[in-house]
């Protein structure tokens, strides 16, 4: 590594830290309805939305109401995206005359975008019409992220409210997050990206005759507006097949810098927002510190692996990477995108060194809580916080409390279920795929890398990440259906328990902190939290990682190929 490499990593992380309190405060003012200084046109849009939909912004919802609104809204989104795909050949804005995908692919893609996963078993430029991408996918890029923000806000209210029983209003949380937070940022990012060369037009694909006289088709479309929100909303679904490696999707180091920043910007800011909502910025900074520390260590390990040569092939780790980004930007991205449930890639993860690829997978396995998805990362982290508080309570023999609220059997039940569920889906799903011909016939690589491909697919789906070891042919009925179910269960099987916990906490009295209370604002708590996360993650996944990336690393050092 050179000084320049450190500088590139440092600059992005510094920008992230500087933006956190600014953006975090802004999100707080939006979510609490205190208006902030939102631009007039956006305020008009918000009022208009309420009027058309018949939403009373002042109504408070209990957890059941909040959950049913959230579920129905997402169900509706699924139906729209599914139908748009199946009917795209009869609809306008389809200059390439693309026909409907298979039902299982359409199911998979619809689930994928509604759950903020953006796993893509299809190639954008050869499968979906401009209309489907624009009216179907771009919309879900916004509202699935807004769903995450809403659920986080509900949890924060559950923690901070006393004997109230209500968590806010899903409709307003959804509308405000979309219109005031995501939309203005997406407008700025679209303009930055177009300036760098990301396409934004409605022309048909252009046919060029190259200098050597070959035909080359240049794909077009409304890419910039979708890519902006794909990054900001931790969605990650590429407009083109090769995602942010594609020069029309990520043309320059500058576009790459802004896209990478956009991956973690909102998840990081929402940690601060959460702190403001529950009334403890100190607690938020402890969580932030835990996340940042883990992120930096993970980038460090990946960088060490990537800057060493591949001794089995006798070359540097440049396969699957773009010249303009180089190794350092590929590693920053592979970590940003996997800790954050974004899932976009600017280098092919399947071709990463075994350790860097393994780290990418491990980041997702930890539960997408190192900043994590927009909103989703924060509520996922709070589950681990509750677990850590509970463990600490057991160790000192006191009733565990979080912000003065007793953590009891009901909270622990609904905390452990969403922590275990994604892990179970990953391991059981991968086990089924490894033992059936339907699962194995999709493999592209042999040896331990084959296991990594399958494992990565189920990890990505069950962590709602969406990135891939893309050698695996995932567009088969087996993978479309199993991965689709993993995405659904992992998303709503976490959101629902989170809302249950939020509802239960909201009902409780808050006892004042005493000298005997366990503080969640210091280093001690940070360390216990890290230990909890690592023990759960490592114990669950070490055996299978040993059979995939770790053994592949050792075999690579020994010069073995498959």
């Amino acid at each position, binding site marked *: 590594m050179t000084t320049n490499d450190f*500088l*590139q990593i440092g*600059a992005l992380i510094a920008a992230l830290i500087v933006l956190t309190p600014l953006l975090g405060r802004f999100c707080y003012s939006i979510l609490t309805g205190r208006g902030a200084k939102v631009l007039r046109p956006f305020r008009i849009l918000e009022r208009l939305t309420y009027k058309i*939909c*018949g*939403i009373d912004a002042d109504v408070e919802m209990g957890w059941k109401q909040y959950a*049913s*609104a959230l579920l*129905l809204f997402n*169900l509706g989104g699924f139906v729209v995206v599914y139908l748009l795909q199946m009917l795209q050949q009869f609809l306008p804005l389809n200059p390439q005359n693309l026909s409907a995908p298979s039902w299982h692919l359409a199911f998979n893609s619809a689930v994928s975008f509604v759950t903020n996963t953006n796993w893509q078993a299809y*190639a954008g*430029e050869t499968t979906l019409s401009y209309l489907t991408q*624009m009216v179907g996918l*771009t*919309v879900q890029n916004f*509202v699935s992220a807004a769903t995450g923000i809403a659920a986080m806000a509900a949890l924060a209210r559950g923690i901070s409210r006393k004997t109230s029983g209500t968590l806010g209003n899903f*409709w307003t949380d*959804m*509308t405000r997050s*979309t219109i005031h937070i995501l939309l203005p940022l997406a*407008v700025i990012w679209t303009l930055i990206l177009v*300036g760098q*060369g990301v*396409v*934004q*037009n409605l022309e048909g694909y252009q046919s*060029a*005759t*190259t200098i050597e006289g070959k035909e080359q*088709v*240049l*794909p*077009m479309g*409304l890419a*910039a507006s*979708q890519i902006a929100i794909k990054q900001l909303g931790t969605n990650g679904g590429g407009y083109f097949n*090769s995602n942010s*490696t594609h*020069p029309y999707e990520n*043309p*320059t*180091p*500058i576009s790459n810098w802004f896209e990478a920043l956009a991956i973690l910007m909102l998840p990081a800011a929402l940690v601060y927002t959460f702190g403001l909502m529950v009334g403890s910025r100190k607690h938020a900074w402890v969580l932030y510190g835990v996340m940042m520390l883990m992120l930096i260590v993970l980038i460090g390990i990946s960088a060490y692996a990537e800057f060493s040569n591949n001794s*089995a*092939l006798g*070359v*540097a780790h440049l*396969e*699957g990477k*773009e*010249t303009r*980004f180089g190794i350092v930007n590929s590693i920053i991205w592979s970590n940003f995108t996997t800790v954050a449930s974004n899932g976009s890639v600017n*280098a092919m993860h399947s*071709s990463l060194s075994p350790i860097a690829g393994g780290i990418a997978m491990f980041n997702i396995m930890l539960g997408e809580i190192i900043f994590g998805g927009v909103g989703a990362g924060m509520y996922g982290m709070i589950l681990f916080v509750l677990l850590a508080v509970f463990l600490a309570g057991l160790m000192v023999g006191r009733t565990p409390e979080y912000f003065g609220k007793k953590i009891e059997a009901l909270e622990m039940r609904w905390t452990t279920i969403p922590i275990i569920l994604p892990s179970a889906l990953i391991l059981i799903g991968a086990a089924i795929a490894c033992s059936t011909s339907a699962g194995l016939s999709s493999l*592209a690589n*042999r040896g*331990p*890398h084959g296991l990594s491909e399958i494992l990565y697919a189920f990890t990505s789906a069950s962590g709602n990440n969406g990135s891939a070891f893309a050698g695996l042919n995932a567009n088969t009925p087996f993978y479309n259906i199993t991965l689709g179910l993993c995405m659904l269960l992992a998303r709503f099987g976490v959101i629902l328990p989170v809302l249950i916990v939020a509802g239960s906490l909201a009902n409780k009295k808050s006892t004042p902190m005493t000298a005997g209370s366990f503080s969640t604002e210091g280093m001690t708590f940070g360390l216990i939290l890290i230990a909890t996360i690592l023990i759960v993650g490592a114990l669950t996944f070490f055996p299978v990682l040993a059979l995939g990336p770790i053994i592949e690393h050792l075999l690579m050092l020994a010069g073995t*190929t*498959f």
Partner: protein
Amino acid sequence: MKTLIIAAKLILVMTAITGVMYPMIMLGAAQTLFPHQANGSLIYFDGRLIGSELIGQEFTDLKYFWPRPSGVGYTSQPSGGTNLGPTSKVLSEQIATRRARLIETHDGEQPPDNLILASGSGLDPHISPAAAFYQVDRVAKARGLDSGQLDLLQQLAERSVEPYNFGFIGQPRVNVLKLNISTDSLFSKRSK
């Protein structure tokens, strides 16, 4: 039931805002502010579309600078990498073949790694500066350039290096298509 109706209406309103209004306004803004970029940074020659500044092309002729290998043959429909893993025998064989071919055409010199490894998009428009300089002698020979012209070509390659952005972001690189176009225009009269 009331919830269902609100949900349905809200989806439609959100679709109108984020799925129609937003991309369309962005379309208008992009076409006004950055028409060249928004339409694909296309390059025309004599009114004929020959490619895009941003999208790599295949070059196999000895008189051109060559790009990196591509998992999709620079066809772009769809784009993509090879996805071959770090212990792939297929990749190992590809590397051996490519290395041998480059050594054979470059007076026995070892090629830089990026010239024998495929990119993620399969459309990488760039090679490293070292990979461009590596090819100068071969291009000059294929074009029958004398030693004065060889110096000109070397200078052209050096001028084509795009440095770090803002002094430290990204990687120094050479755009292969642009370099080949300027090579052609520099030597078009003399090489014919």
